[in-house]
């Protein structure tokens, strides 16, 4: 079997999500190649070539690929798949945007967000917000898979010595154009890669209070900041902070939930964290059913006190 992994990157840096996808690809058994599609992204290809377990890097460097528009990347990837048995992408917003389009072009089902490789054609994946785990077997000759980053170890970023091959230029489908991006700037660690996360919920009450109470605790712990959907919807935190079934899936060493009730959709995104701490004034809050350590009380007094004592 030969496997093509879609690299996650921003044209400058190879992102960690790629490393979990490489591990999953390795478990399929066979030669693992990585596709770096972008523009001015030679450094990314160099980094990918060093990843342990990668035999070859395909570098597609073209202006039409700069913004990773699926209209342009998917046909390129689908074309390359003539020489591969499986296409593996990280289940990031970019991977999710591109992979199904590749699957459609290949006329195969996509197996979304796999948690494990049971056999080269059999995988486990979460359904119903992670309340059930399905073991699914595909009958398709070629496989298209997205990989949940928290479920696989990261491949080492050194030790590999893959060759880099430049693949033919891409075409601009001309149907979509990148206009701009507003990326959240933060000195804190990235949510899906963070070892510690402090998340705030609706209880914070305003954007100002969210920053006033959550940020210092996060800074003290060197943590990333997350939020419940209620907090994001209310504008207390930006959308990319949302943890949950329909937000980001995280599994840090320590997850501190502040003023979050613990709705199943929220739990779906964080219940695989190693240690969960909950601060909530309602002792019946469902979050306490998954918390390793719970503290009942008013966050507006407890959080500053905790920040001070750490």
């Amino acid at each position, binding site marked *: 079997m030969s496997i093509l992994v879609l690299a996650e990157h921003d044209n400058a840096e190879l992102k960690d999500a790629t490393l979990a996808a490489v591990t999953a690809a390795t478990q399929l058994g066979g030669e693992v190649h990585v596709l770096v599609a972008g523009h001015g992204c030679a450094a990314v290809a160099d980094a990918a070539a060093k990843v342990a377990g990668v035999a070859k890097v395909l570098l597609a460097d073209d202006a039409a690929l700069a913004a990773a*528009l*699926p*209209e342009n990347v998917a046909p390129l990837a689908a074309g390359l798949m003539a020489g591969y048995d499986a296409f593996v992408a990280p289940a*990031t*917003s*970019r991977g*999710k*945007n*591109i*992979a*199904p389009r*590749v*699957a*459609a072009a290949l*006329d*195969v*089902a*996509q*197996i*979304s967000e796999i948690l494990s490789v049971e056999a080269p054609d059999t995988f486990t994946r*979460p359904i*119903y*917000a*992670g*309340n*059930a*785990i*399905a*073991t*699914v*077997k595909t*009958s398709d000759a070629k496989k298209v898979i997205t990989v949940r980053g928290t479920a696989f170890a990261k491949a080492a970023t050194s030790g590999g010595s893959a060759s880099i091959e430049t693949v033919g230029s891409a075409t601009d489908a001309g*149907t*979509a*154009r990148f*206009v701009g*991006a507003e*990326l959240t700037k933060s000195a804190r660690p990235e949510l899906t890669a963070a070892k510690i996360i402090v998340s705030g919920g609706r209880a914070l009450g305003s954007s100002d209070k969210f920053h006033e109470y959550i940020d210092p605790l996060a800074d003290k712990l060197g943590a990333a900041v997350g939020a419940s*959907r209620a907090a*994001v*919807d209310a504008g207390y935190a930006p*959308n*990319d902070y949302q943890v949950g*079934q*329909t937000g980001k899936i995280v599994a840090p*060493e*320590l997850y501190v939930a502040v003023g979050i009730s613990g709705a*199943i*959709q929220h739990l779906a995104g964080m*219940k695989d964290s190693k*240690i969960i*701490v909950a601060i909530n004034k309602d002792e019946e809050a469902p979050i*306490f059913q*998954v*918390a390793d*350590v*719970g*503290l009942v009380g008013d966050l507006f007094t407890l959080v500053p006190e*905790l920040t001070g*004592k750490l």
Partner: protein
Amino acid sequence: MKVLVPVKRVVDYNVKVRVKSDQTGVELANIKMSMNPFDEIAVEEAIRLKEKGIATEVVVVSIGVQQCTETLRTALAMGADRGILVQTDVTTESLAVAKVLARIAADEAPGLIILGKQAIDDDANQTGQMLAGLLGWAQGTFASKLDPQGETVNVTREIDGGLETVALKLPAVVTTDLRLNEPRYASLPNIMKAKSKPIATKTPADYGVDMTPRLTTLKVTEPAKRQAGIKVKSVDELVTKLKEMGAVA
């Protein structure tokens, strides 16, 4: 411009599903079913486009069992104009659903197809992208803002690092994220009115689509359960506990 909105009937989001003891699936008998929440957002967006005079007609489609008619009626009560039920008892996999939708798109020639970004039962997050791929159309997934401007539509997308805006040539496929809008509730008069709105019943065969699943579910199991831990009485106790567990230095 016509807007097509595919709506899926799923287990209501308030229901905590239980895995069947024989591991063949989840318990679905006597469970409340509703429209996928992301699809309510899609219907709402389409209706708003009609209210703004941008859309001329909102057509809703559901693929699945007979009871999907209820889901279509809900969309019609919200304000959609007519429905198409593509009836099948076979497990609906995204690729087959996308193929049926692509054929309907060829018949109906919509300017926009708005889907949910994911269905909350299978959480696959793929149908819209597959549909766009089959049609060769542009796609704006995970949309939190939609701004049609003549021949194009600007879509603001929720991505891992924040927000991104793309300009898509029409016709295009859009999938909704949670913050696109807040769907309305259907009023009683509108629920009554919806009863007389037309729903055409079709089968996948009418569209020449083979629904045979590509995937077999070998088993469905419960995820590893977390044990509830302890409650501490004070911040001091919490700090001590965290240190004991090695969670903080």
